[in-house]
């Protein structure tokens, strides 16, 4: 395969449009006559609904309709359980509009559709809901106690799922251990907070019977399938388009949010387009969150520091419902041993219902929590054994010759046992040790201490299972008139630069300019086989599908061109948008080849005229199109990964604690990551840096504050602290490229890489910086100045 643009820092095709403000996000799409929706949401975490009175709202000028559970027909159901699993009994999912009960503050109770959002909000305030509040327990640990009020009467101790996974023989291994390290870690809730909130618009064409839905989703094909099934419409009458989407980060992969069903329903019923543009407050209380877990992790090791066994028990807060199944907990549990050999693992989790917003994936999807647990434990083990944090890792990392390294008994999100396919873990560790200046650091630290400054070095390793199936597809067509190449795939983008990355793959096969490859993704009308964008899979799965497809088109093009140029196939090369006879000036444009391979075409332009100078592209005896041959230069193919492909990396940081403000300053941050072959290093770095910023946010700034009544106390950007540029440090990013042996392009996913290890890295650095203050461990995230003060002030007291 030619590698002209693969691996190069091609600029993005899509940028000029965005830079000029010409993006088309859902709310930018002009739907004349559109009505606007808003929701009445529960102010109680848990309550019975006795009555809903909508009359005043209905009477308001400008209000078109008001919906409750009583007038939404067959949408009054418990929404689908997207990912079933045996360890969940009777999984609870919510209704689009609450019936009889509400289960979290923010849950949708009624929908108002009006001439504009202002009026809709006015009307929503007039809807009188008679609630009877019930007792609640929002604390995760207390929620599983016998005394805790139940979120769902069907689930004792609020346990939604309970799963034990065992790899190897931990019981036997534990007996051989000299030492055990036990810690408890806790990670708090956060939210994706993409700059564009969620949004959905729908229009129903009564003439054609076609429903069109624009949805700022990461899963347009899933949405299409779901809508067709729920509304009992033929799939070809439902078109879902994910237009430009302003960030997703997992929050937008969940389907269906109530609005994704109710807005199309209203559009069909009312005969007008309907838009629901979530506002920021609604995003905080109505769109799903993630991260809350409490781990009790134990490492059983020899006194030399070889970890023989790991035991982990964790509680996973799943919120009031569990539509996404155990995915997050599953990913966390199967990532718990990180990059280490640890051949014996016992990991047990309980997913717990709390009367809070539903939990579904946010970038990292459980990996940050697992990484925090294992990495803090490794630091603690190192400290207890008197071994350096680098050495403890060196002793335990999977070595190059051990790949593929399987963990029997741990089932990853791909439904298969964990199998880490490739990597150079030791080399990454060596590199980071050098890049962060670990050897010189003790001197630097000593000097700082003498000046009364607190400086620390932290590090953490992570692994990331990526590129999940089941599959994605690619469709490529070379256009006969322009010679431009049109590419489709089923998943969609939210800023990852698919239009450029996939174009590079195609450009390399077909010898065209990247700018002449035009991607349309995320539109079921353009291509409707596929899954969605999540779990760092687009480059691996769609990328390889498009690659395979491009090879087919390349072959067709070469065969056709060879016929036209009357040479052998091996004498034809593709470059600069033409097919050339090797070592000659004879060529024919791709447009001409495309034209010639469609035998019905007349010579209606120059390219077509050129095509008629040659013998027809197909053989001449018999029909113009052979049996089994298609006209044109077009192909569709699919890639279905055999299993996940595991990326990894290591982070290190030098942190300083300011005595006055007790805030953590990151003096230097270095990371090494390995996502296999990189199609476009600039885009990869962008993904890593973006993930890293969210990692820092979750480590030092962000926490969804839920009070004891279940209200989110900081449901706004004033009090929920998404960092500005001033809060994110510069970062040095280094690449290792260990190709994945599992797919033709040798790529691994990288979308979530940046955020996974940040918490552990900074906690490790702070523990080091403040060691003399009674060896604080920093075992919970986020780490606030108040918490750092508590550590420093204890020393002052003593």
């Amino acid at each position, binding site marked *: 395969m030619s590698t002209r643009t693969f691996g190069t820092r091609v*600029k*993005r095709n899509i*940028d*000029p449009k*965005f*830079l*000029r*403000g010409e*993006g*088309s*996000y859902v*709310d*930018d799409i*002009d739907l004349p*006559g559109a009505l606007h929706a808003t929701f009445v949401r529960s102010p109680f975490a848990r309550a019975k609904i006795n009555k809903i009175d*909508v009359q005043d709202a*209905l009477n308001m*000028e*400008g*209000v*078109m*309709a*008001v919906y*409750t559970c*009583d*007038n939404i027909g067959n949408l009054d159901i418990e929404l689908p359980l997207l990912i079933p699993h045996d360890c969940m009994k009777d999984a609870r999912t919510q209704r689009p509009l609450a019936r009889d009960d509400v289960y979290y503050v923010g849950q949708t109770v009624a929908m108002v559709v009006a*001439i*504009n959002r*202002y009026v809709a909000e006015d009307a929503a305030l007039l809807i009188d809901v008679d609630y009877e509040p019930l007792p609640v327990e929002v604390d995760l640990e207390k929620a599983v106690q016998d005394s805790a009020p139940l979120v769902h009467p069907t689930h004792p101790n609020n346990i939604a799922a309970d799963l034990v996974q065992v790899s190897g023989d931990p019981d036997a291994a534990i007996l051989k251990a000299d030492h055990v390290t036990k810690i408890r870690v806790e990670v708090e809730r956060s939210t*994706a*907070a*993409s*700059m*564009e909130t969620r949004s959905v618009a729908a229009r129903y064409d009564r003439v054609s019977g076609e429903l069109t839905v624009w949805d700022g989703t990461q899963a347009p094909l899933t949405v299409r399938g779901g809508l067709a099934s729920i509304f009992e419409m033929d799939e070809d009458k439902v078109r879902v388009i994910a237009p*430009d*989407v*302003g*960030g997703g*980060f997992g929050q937008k992969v969940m389907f269906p949010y109530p609005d994704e069903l109710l807005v199309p329903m209203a559009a069909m*019923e009312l005969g007008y387009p309907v838009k629901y543009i979530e*506002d*920021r407050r609604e995003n905080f209380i109505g769109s799903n969150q993630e991260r809350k877990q409490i781990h009790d992790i134990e490492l059983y090791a020899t006194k030399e520091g070889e970890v023989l066994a790991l035991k982990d028990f964790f509680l996973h807060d799943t919120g009031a419902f569990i539509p996404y199944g155990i995915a997050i907990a599953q990913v966390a549990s199967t990532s718990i041993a990180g990059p280490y050999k640890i051949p014996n693992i016992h990991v047990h989790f309980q997913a717990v219902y709390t009367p809070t917003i539903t939990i579904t994936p946010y970038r990292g999807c459980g990996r940050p929590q697992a990484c925090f647990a294992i990495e803090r434990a490794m630091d603690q083990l190192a400290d207890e054994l008197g071994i350096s944090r680098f050495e403890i890792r060196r002793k335990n990392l999977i070595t190059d010759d051990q790949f593929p390294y399987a963990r029997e008994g741990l089932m990853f999100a791909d439904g298969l046992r964990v199998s880490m396919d490739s990597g150079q873990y030791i080399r990454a560790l060596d590199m980071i040790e050098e890049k962060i200046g670990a050897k010189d650091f003790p001197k630097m630290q000593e000097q700082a201490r003498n000046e009364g400054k607190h400086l620390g070095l932290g590090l953490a390793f992570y692994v990331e299972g990526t590129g999940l199936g089941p599959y994605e597809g690619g469709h490529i067509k070379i256009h006969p008139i322009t010679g431009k190449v049109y590419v489709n795939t089923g998943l969609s983008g*939210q*800023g990852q630069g698919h239009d450029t990355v996939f174009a590079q793959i195609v450009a390399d096969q077909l010898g065209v300019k990247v700018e002449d490859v035009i991607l349309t993704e995320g539109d079921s009308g353009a291509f409707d086989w596929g899954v969605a964008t999540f779990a760092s899979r687009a480059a691996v799965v769609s990328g390889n599908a498009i690659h395979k497809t491009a090879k087919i088109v390349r072959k067709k093009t070469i065969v056709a061109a060879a016929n036209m140029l009357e040479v052998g196939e091996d004498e034809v090369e593709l470059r600069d948008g033409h097919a050339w006879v090797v070592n000659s000036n004879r060529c024919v444009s791709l447009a001409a080849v495309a034209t010639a391979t469609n035998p019905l075409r007349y010579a209606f332009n120059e390219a077509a005229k050129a095509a008629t100078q040659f013998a027809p592209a197909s053989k001449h005896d018999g029909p113009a199109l052979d049996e089994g041959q298609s006209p044109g230069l077009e192909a569709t193919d699919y890639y279905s990964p055999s299993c996940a492909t595991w990326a990894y990396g290591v982070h290190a940081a030098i942190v300083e604690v300011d005595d006055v403000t007790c805030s953590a300053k990151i003096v230097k941050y270095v990371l090494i990551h390995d996502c296999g072959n990189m199609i476009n290093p600039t885009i990869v*770095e*962008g993904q890593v*840096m*973006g*993930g890293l*910023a*969210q990692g820092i946010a979750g480590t030092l700034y962000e926490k969804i504050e839920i009070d004891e009544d279940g209200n989110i106390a900081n449901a*706004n*950007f*004033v009090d929920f602290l*998404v960092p*500005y*540029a*001033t809060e*994110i440090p*510069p970062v040095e990013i280094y690449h290792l490229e260990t190709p994945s042996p599992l797919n033709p392009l040798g790529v691994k996913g990288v979308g979530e890489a940046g955020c996974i290890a940040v918490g552990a890295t900074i906690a490790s650095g702070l523990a080091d910086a403040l060691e003399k203050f009674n060896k604080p461990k920093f075992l919970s995230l986020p780490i606030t100045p108040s918490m750092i003060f508590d550590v420093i002030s204890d020393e002052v007291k003593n």
Partner: protein
Amino acid sequence: MKTVKKLTPSKSTDPTRKISLTVNGEAVEREVSVRMLLSDFIRHELGLTGTHVGCEHGICGACTIMVNGESSRSCAILAVQADGMDLRTIESVADKDGCLHPIQQAFQDSHALQCGYCTPGMIMNILSEFESNSKIDTSDEGIRELLSGNLCRCTGYANIVEAVRVAAERMGKS
């Protein structure tokens, strides 16, 4: 119980006001609801959807435009308050033939945008700083200070910082 009205939508009963202003050099006269936010006015009344809405409480900066040459949050201004003012939005920044402004070009060259949602507000903020200062502090700290007030969730800011530095250099402002 029947709870759906079968009416064609009626107009809102909000009090309204006539306003005249200039938007990207063009004179505009409209009658607007007095509570309409300037962000909604620009996007929906005028169809200039390049200005985006991220929070409606003045923190994220996605809605930043220029009012009388000064950066402002359009979500924290009522349309009626813009009466008599001169507005500039992202649509005015590139040339009429679409040729990118040096700041926009620097953004592309530095991969300073991913989803593109925060980008117009980010650029309007940078542009207003560039237009009101002959020299820009292009240290890492100085640029981050200039950018604070605009949230980005995709890029982690590193490339945006680089884009500002590159733009300042190219425009002779560093």
